[in-house]
């Protein structure tokens, strides 16, 4: 029983960084920007959060620093991909490599450590114990006592859905992704819409980084994003950018992440257990494409029946 609860709790926790990064990437997905820089944005966010929290002694400053870090990375991406019209893929790769190099370098310079930096001066995000529910056995253990950002990120998922499908910005964003010259022709600056989309993706990925280094664990480690930005990309493509779908996919990946951890204590070598989330990504892509093919086939058969 305890093991089950542990697994579910770790599922929720592991899902958050992927969820936040993929929510960010959803904006760029709809703007038709091939944004692979979530990985770098997560990492910079995580590092900046530790930096802010450690030196200020406040988790709030840490949170703001992390988000700013993500936005900073987004500004670089915007400058190159939108205004200088460089290739989005190459820019994204460069940004990811830069993020890894810069955080590793700064880690060693500022904290004089290699690998990972831990300190009791890094103030973690506070947990939220939901009144009443907290006291209920099992349910309380399952639902209460997570870092407060976890609850907020689930709320953000719903807000993003609303933002993209019900608001003026959302309408313009999706139109920009489909045909930016049409958007320009009705007097909207499509470059500005794209920039906003990238900045939002930076802010949300940065927040994902904050969760990673101030909540999921309480430290910074070199390359601690560890492919989560890439998994976020896979999640976006799998769900075709539906934020509510993202929520479930992120939980699924969180589960496999947690499962990988749980299996570490068994006879399976840890190198294999660490593969679990990535194998799950490949498997998901496979089933997704197979399902899509069948759907197209069905639609065609329906059509030919109608004729």
């Amino acid at each position, binding site marked *: 029983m305890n093991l089950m609860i542990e697994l579910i709790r770790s599922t929720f926790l592991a899902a958050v960084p992927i969820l936040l990064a993929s929510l960010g990437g959803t904006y760029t997905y709809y703007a038709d920007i091939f944004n692979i820089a979530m990985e770098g944005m997560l990492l910079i966010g995580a590092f900046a959060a530790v930096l802010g929290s450690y030196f200020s002694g406040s988790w709030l400053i840490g949170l703001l620093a992390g988000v700013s870090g993500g936005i900073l990375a987004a500004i670089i991406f915007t400058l190159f991909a939108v205004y200088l019209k460089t290739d989005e893929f190459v820019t994204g790769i460069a940004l990811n490599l830069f993020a890894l190099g810069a955080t590793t370098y700064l880690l060693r310079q500022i904290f004089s450590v290699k690998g990972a930096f831990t300190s009791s001066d890094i103030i973690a995000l506070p947990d939220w114990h939901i009144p009443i529910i907290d006291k209920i056995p099992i349910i309380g253990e399952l639902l209460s006592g997570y870092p407060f950002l976890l609850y907020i990120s689930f709320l953000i998922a719903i807000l993003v859905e609303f933002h993209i499908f019900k608001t003026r910005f959302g309408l313009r964003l999706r139109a920009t992704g489909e045909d930016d010259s049409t958007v320009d022709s009705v007097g909207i600056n499509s470059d500005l819409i794209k920039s906003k989309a990238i900045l939002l993706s930076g802010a949300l990925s940065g927040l994902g980084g904050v969760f990673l280094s101030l909540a999921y664990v309480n430290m910074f480690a070199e390359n601690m994003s560890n492919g989560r930005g890439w998994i976020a990309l896979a999640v976006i493509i799998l769900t075709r950018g539906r934020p509510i779908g993202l929520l479930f996919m992120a939980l699924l990946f969180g589960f496999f992440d947690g499962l990988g951890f749980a299996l570490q204590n068994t006879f399976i070598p840890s190198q294999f257990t660490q593969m679990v989330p990535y194998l799950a990504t490949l498997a998901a892509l496979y089933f997704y494409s197979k399902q899509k093919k069948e759907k*197209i086939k069905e639609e*065609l058969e329906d059509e030919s029946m109608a004729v």
Partner: protein
Amino acid sequence: MVEALIEIDSLVKIYPPSTIAVKDFDLKINTGEIHSVIGENGAGKSTLMKMIYGLTERSSGKIKINNRDVKFTSPQQAVKYGIGMVHQEFMLIPSYTVFENIILGVEPTSKLGIIEKKEAEKKIKDLIKQYNFNLKLKSKISEISVAAQQKVEILKLLYRDVDVLILDEPTAVLTPQEIEDLFLRLKKLRYEGRTIIFISHKLDEVLELSDVITVMRKGEKITTLENNNLGKAELAKAMVGRDVIFSIDKTKANLGDVIFSAVNLNYKDANGIQQLEDVSLQINSGEILGVAGVEGNGQYELVRAISGLLDLDYGEIKIKNKNIEDLDILKRRREMAYVTQDRKFMGSAQDLNLMENSIMTHHRLNDELSYYHPVLLSKSASIKFADNLINKFKVISESSKQPISSLSGGNQQRLIVGREFMLSDQFIMLDNPTRGLDVGSIEFIQEEIINKRDKGAAVLLVSADLDELFSLADRLLVMHSGKVVFNTDTARTNKEEIGQYMLGAEMSDSA
């Protein structure tokens, strides 16, 4: 004297270094008139409109609207002054609904930026009713016809309360029935006090629709005429600068044996859509068979299937009793000439020079281009071949060494048509051979097609231009949804009837 709504005073546009697109242009457009601006391709009509609409900056001159000097730097400013434009290429988001496309950019929202549909929907519904647009707000753009999309574009402007509508070649994408429909609507708009600027090069349409006609040639205004008792010939003369013969001299077809036949061609594309369904056709020596149809109804697939660019699911194609459906493209090219619809990408290699473009295909089939060995091409023979082609097909150029991209569209097409016509005398396939060309080149190419026919070639002519089909073809086929739905002698039909078949009218009757 009524104050002009739009007054243009010695407007000039120079594209650096020295291309004068519009020269000392004066124009007055009055409220409540349909004012057509006509001219050949490249006469500067579009540049003129873009300057009015704020898409292109003027070099000098003045534009006044309601007696106020204006200098728009974006279309939105023009819209604020009540001027809107429907472009040739529609500016619509395919996956959005009619409603979403109309409000995009001027969305009514609450304070939080949430879109409020109610009022906008009512306004649009009222407009649809008022002008009898027959559109549904929830239809997706990608699922409605081109004519309906054009209605959405017009509706977009009406929703923004514009008084002046500029329409750039709006009839190019429409069938005859749809054109009539559009004209009725435009006349209603004028009747209600709106002003319409209609850009076209089709004289019949301009004469039918407009109150005033301004003729442009080479960036200059030739004349502005009231449209009463104007003749097509004088208008054409003003537009082209010389007499134009409208009726192409064509003797009766002198039919010989069957040269080309296709039986039960069937093709399903990668998405499973039946693009060709049991298409059969036959062309005799000395005959031009025209293929009409709204674009995207299988004509393109037909042409590509015959040329070997796509693999049929089944079907038989014969040229002179020889089956070619399993031959590769080069072997087929021994038997046929083929002018593609796409001049820039398939018809020519834009960066290569005239000589290189002239010998394409010939370089594999014509032994005279090599002296020693078929693999080695002779440069001098190639140049001789190209010069001969350039002379024969009156390609205006400086030398066979200039890249083909430096020629005008008309001259490029003359070279391409010439190259193909030198390839085969028996079967010639032409896919929109005169699209987008100047009147002079159209005339020349059409005459060459007739010449080929008179020499005994079988000609397959696919065209989106009904005028062209009616003046050239001896027989007409109409394609709809991948099927041949009508097959007739050109003399026994008219545009209206063809238009109905193009829209699939007969088919929906039986359904």
